[in-house]
Structures are given as structure tokens and as C-alpha cells.
């Protein structure tokens, strides 16, 4: 691949053929018991991942398999996450459910794991498709992106400047959602809505706080903010509720009911949305067991039954979608506790 004495991107993309698994799925295979499934979230001690993993634990116990959780204590310690993949490989678990900090960095390690007959399911945040067997997506990225714009546009009466407060600039899922938001805004009904800026708070409370301040100072006419991250929306809500902008600048995005309850009740936030993380974890666990039992292999079109959650079909590139997110507002928020 050295046409002019060196290797370039083009040479590589030519080489890169996707490697799909050749194994045949047996939809009627018995669900195995006594498996060990390792959960590897982006960060341990993160409330969101803890509830997701708890969901996984519940499902595994029900299925008679063993659950374990390992993970780095920082959400940006990619090397740490890689070494945990290695650890799980060494410990010969039957499957692992991984929320990837980085789409590429885990690949070598994950492929190594698959070579050792370990099934790999990603959840919440994906890697490149050839590095895992299946991806359990919290909701389709398209749904999330579009509904958040719809939620906010309704609140501001389809008119005025809006901004987005995201997490890290590299967060893959955030960026996909933001792309769909921009696409949704192209619809003529949003002709009076103007997206003025995307700010990044790095999922750090203090930084998100200051970014919110900055947005409001820079765009005094700002009417609304979308923050598709639980840390960001919480920090923005806390700032707004202690400032003169409370109630005047609308805020929506992805948040947990427990975090946001206070701000919904005191009028800072009208409505926001989220999927149930516990369900996400549960589906990841059930997918892992189904893979290990040979019911599915991760090919498009295969179906399997995920306990009480019903039947799921594997989509393109091995993606399994959890479903539509729930919208929380004053009326229904007290029915949820996570």
C-alpha cells in the first residue's frame, strides 16, 4: 500500500473491509444459565451508569447468571477503560457490556476479547461496529435529536434564539444528536428559531455553569437552551434558578427526574426527557445472554425476546434500539424515581 513511498488515509480505507461473524443464529436455542457478564461503564460511581448497571444486575439475577461491574473512576480515563477490558478478558467472563469512552480506543482490546470467545455488547455509547457484537441504543439518535428541538420550540413559541450546551466536544452520542437537531431545525416551521451556538461544558458542573453564564451574556435575547446531557442540564438549571433568567429562558434536554424535580417544581424547567437507564442496562444484559446462548449473532434482522420487555429486532450495523424516550413534566414527574 505504498504507492508514493508512504501510507496515507486512502490506502487504509481501501484495505478496510468489515469483518462480520459467520456463525449462524439459532433463535430457538435455550437461554444459558450460570454465565458471568461484566458491566464496564464509562465511569463507576456515576449515578446514571449505576442505575443502568443495576438494571443489568436485576435481569442477570433473574436469568440465573452472574453480574459484575468494573470500571475506571474517571470518565476520561480511556487507558483505564482499556485495561479493564483486558482484565475482563483475563477473567474469562462470558460476555461484557461496555459503554465506550472512545469509539476507537477500545477496539484492539475488544477484538482481543471476542477472539477469546467473549461476547461484547455496547450500550449507551458505541464503538466502531466491527469491535462488538451488538449495540443497545438508548433511543434512536434521530428520535432524541428531533424531539428535543420539538420540546423547546413548543416552549418558546417557535420563535427566538436558542443554544445547545453539550458535554465534551468528543462525545460521540452528543454529536450525533446535535446533528439531528440541526437537521430538524431545517424544517420550515422553525424558520424563526435560530441556533446561535453550541457550547461545551465537558460534563463538569462548574464548567457547564460558567458556559451557561457565558451564553446568556453573549446572547441577551436567548430564549432557550437544549442540554442533551444530565450533568449539563442540571448545572444550567441550578444557574438559571438562582438568576434573573429563571423562567424566562427555557431549558430542556436529557435529565433524570430526581435531579430535575426541584427545577420543574420551581418553574425553571417545563419539560425534559430521558429513557429509563435501568431498562437500558436490562436490555444490554439480556442481549449479552442471548448472544452467549447463540439465539442471536448480531446480524441485521435477527430477533429475540427480552423477558418482560418484549421482542426486539436487530437493526442495521447490529444496533438494537430501546424505544422512545419519556418526557417528564410537572404532571408526571412524581411517578418516577431514578
Amino acid at each position, binding site marked *: 500500500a505504498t504507492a508514493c513511498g*508512504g*501510507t496515507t488515509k486512502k490506502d*487504509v480505507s481501501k484495505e478496510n473491509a468489515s469483518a462480520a461473524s459467520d456463525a449462524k443464529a439459532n433463535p430457538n436455542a435455550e437461554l444459558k444459565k450460570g454465565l458471568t457478564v461484566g458491566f464496564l461503564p464509562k465511569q463507576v460511581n456515576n449515578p446514571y451508569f449505576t442505575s443502568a448497571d443495576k438494571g443489568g444486575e436485576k435481569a442477570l439475577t433473574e436469568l440465573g447468571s452472574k453480574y459484575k461491574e468494573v470500571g475506571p473512576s*474517571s470518565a476520561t480515563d480511556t*487507558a483505564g477503560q482499556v485495561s479493564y477490558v483486558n482484565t475482563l478478558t483475563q477473567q474469562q467472563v462470558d460476555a461484557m457490556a461496555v459503554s465506550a469512552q472512545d469509539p476507537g480506543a477500545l477496539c484492539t482490546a475488544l477484538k482481543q476479547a471476542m477472539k477469546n470467545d467473549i461476547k461484547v455488547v455496547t450500550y449507551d455509547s458505541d464503538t466502531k461496529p466491527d469491535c462488538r457484537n451488538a449495540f443497545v441504543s438508548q433511543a434512536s439518535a434521530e428520535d432524541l435529536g428531533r424531539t428535543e428541538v420539538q420540546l423547546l420550540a413548543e416552549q418558546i413559541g417557535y420563535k427566538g434564539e436558542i443554544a445547545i450546551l453539550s458535554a465534551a466536544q468528543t462525545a460521540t452520542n452528543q454529536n450525533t444528536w446535535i446533528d439531528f437537531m440541526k437537521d430538524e431545525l431545517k424544517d420550515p416551521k422553525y424558520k424563526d428559531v435560530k441556533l446561535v451556538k453550541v457550547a461545551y461544558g465537558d460534563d463538569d458542573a462548574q464548567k457547564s455553569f460558567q458556559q451557561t453564564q457565558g451564553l446568556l451574556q453573549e446572547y441577551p435575547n436567548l430564549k432557550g437552551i437544549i442540554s442533551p446531557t444530565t450533568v449539563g442540564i442540571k448545572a444550567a438549571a441550578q444557574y438559571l434558578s438562582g438568576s434573573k433568567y429563571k423562567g424566562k429562558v427555557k431549558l430542556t434536554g436529557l435529565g433524570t427526574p430526581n435531579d430535575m424535580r426541584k427545577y420543574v417544581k420551581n418553574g425553571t424547567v417545563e419539560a425534559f426527557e430521558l429513557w429509563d437507564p435501568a431498562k437500558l442496562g436490562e436490555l444490554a444484559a439480556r442481549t449479552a445472554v442471548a448472544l452467549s446462548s447463540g439465539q442471536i449473532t448480531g446480524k441485521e434482522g435477527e430477533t429475540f425476546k427480552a423477558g418482560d420487555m418484549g421482542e426486539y429486532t436487530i437493526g442495521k450495523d447490529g444496533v438494537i434500539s430501546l424505544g422512545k424516550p419519556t418526557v417528564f413534566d410537572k404532571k408526571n414527574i412524581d411517578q418516577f424515581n431514578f
Partner: protein
Amino acid sequence: MADSSLARAVRWDTVVGALLIVVLLLSFGTVDGFGNALNLSFLIGNTLPIALIALPMTLLVVAGEIDLSVASTAGLSGAVMGALWNQGMTIETIIPICLLLGVVCGLVNGLLVTRLGLPSLAVTIGTLAAYRGIAQIVLGSDAVTDFPTQYLDFAAGRLGDTFIPYAFLPFLVLLAIAVVALHATPFGRSLFAIGASEEAARFAGIRVKRQKLVLFTVTGLMASLTGIFWALHYASARYDNATGLELSVVAAVLLGGIDFDGGKGTLGGAIAGVFLLGALQNVMSLQDVSAQSQIVVTGVLLVLSVLGPRVARQIAVARARSAPLKGRS
């Protein structure tokens, strides 16, 4: 006589080395999944970035300076590597460019420290932010993952079925060079003098500023080499690669008995410190010790690393005190 041989016997770098061997031996015997070649190659591969930077960092600390911007320099060269790769440049030209960039980063640190006489701690906290910031500007939110496989295989693969990653071999060469440079050349000798007393070194005709400039530059070079290795090893070039690595390097070097006041320490100790931390983390993970508890263990080790020698010294002094009394009676 007795007290000095005792003092020499309890030198901390020897202790760390011994500790490393004990941990390795114990783990071979008792920890499932530790002793196989694959795991050992994981261990070494994941520890290599820290070890690579620890080499020049040890020299720098011996000379009484510090560079906290190493992780950012690594991140920056990874980011530039990714950006140029996206531009369609050949990897064979990109790598030298990135190394050159590391040299420039180190040179900037060095010039600020030697020409303006600024404290290196302050300067490199500044460049820690600046270099990382530039990396963010260069690559933004991209994650570049499609580097050529032969390079990726080199950075992540191992020699046949042995426990030795390919990249470990060049590291050994670099280690040998660093050990010789620090412990057997006039250059190394002058670093100890600079670290212990910069003024006296200057009065002895040692070109303090130039030596320091060389050190900072080499540190930058090694940091960018680490950045390239990192991006290939993890097959991912992002602006936030290797974030926080500086603290791991500093912790490991300190654990190895390098005195941050300068003028003391051995490379052997530093590298033993690096691999001791790496091995412990590996073992603890295999034993399902949580990440939080691992942090505590690292902290306790660090505290012990400074309290330990002191306690040992006091014991040595107490013994020496009783010795001459016996001799007299």
C-alpha cells in the same frame, strides 16, 4: 561503617525494586490470570506510556525541574497526527513532524524556564493548558482511528506468543540510553550537581541553562513519541488522549525515590516505581478490587515511600548510636 552499609541497604530505590519482584512473584503464584503471557503483555503495554515519559522526567527532576505539560504534549502530537492523517498525508512524514512538534513544545518550556528564569512548575502548568487547548483547536471533536494496520499492530501487538510487546524492545533501548546518560556520563553527573545546587554548578563551569534546555527539549520529544505510541496503541487519536498522565508519571517517579528537591535518585528506582504501580493495578483489577480502593492503595504507597526511608534511617541511626557505646565498654 556499619551504619553506612545499613543505610545503603535500605536505600529506597532498592526497596522499590525488591517490592516489585515480590509483587510479581506473589502474583505469579496466587493470582488467576496474572502469569499468562497475554496478561503480562497487557500489563507492559498499558504501562509503557508512563514508563516512556518517566525516563526524561527522572532526569528533569534530578536536575531540580519538573514538566507537567508532558501529557498535553502527548495529546497534542496525537491530535496533530490525526489531523494530518485526515489531510491525506503519509504516516511516514507525519511521525517526524509530530516528533519535531514535541521538540518545539519542549523547547518552549525550556526557553521560558531558562531565559526568563520562571519556575518550571508554573510554566508547565501553563503549557499544560495551552498545549491541550491547541490540540483541541487542531482536531476538535474528531476521533481518528483508521491508522495503517501495520503500525497499529506494531503498537498493540506482541512478539509471537511471548509476553513482550513489540514496543517494549525500543523502550529497553531508550531505557539503556537514559541510564547511561544519567549515571555514567559527565552530562548526568552535572545534572545531579545542578539539582543539588544550581549556583555551585554554575561556578564549576557547568552550562546550567543549556543542560536544562536540552532536558526540556528531550522531554518534549519523548512526550510526543509517547503521544504517537498512545494514538497507535489505542488506535485512536483524540485531543484529550493521555489526559492526566502527568500525575501518574509524577506519582510513579516519586514512588521510585526521586527527590523532588533535585540532586537525588536513580533511574532504576523510577522505572521500578512505574512498573510497581502498573503491576499492582493489574493485580488488583484481576482480584476485583474496585477502582476507588486502588486509588487509596496508590496514595498509601506514596506516603509510605517517603515515610519508609525516614523510619529506616531512624532505625539505622539508633543502631549506630548503640554501636560505639558497646565498642567503648
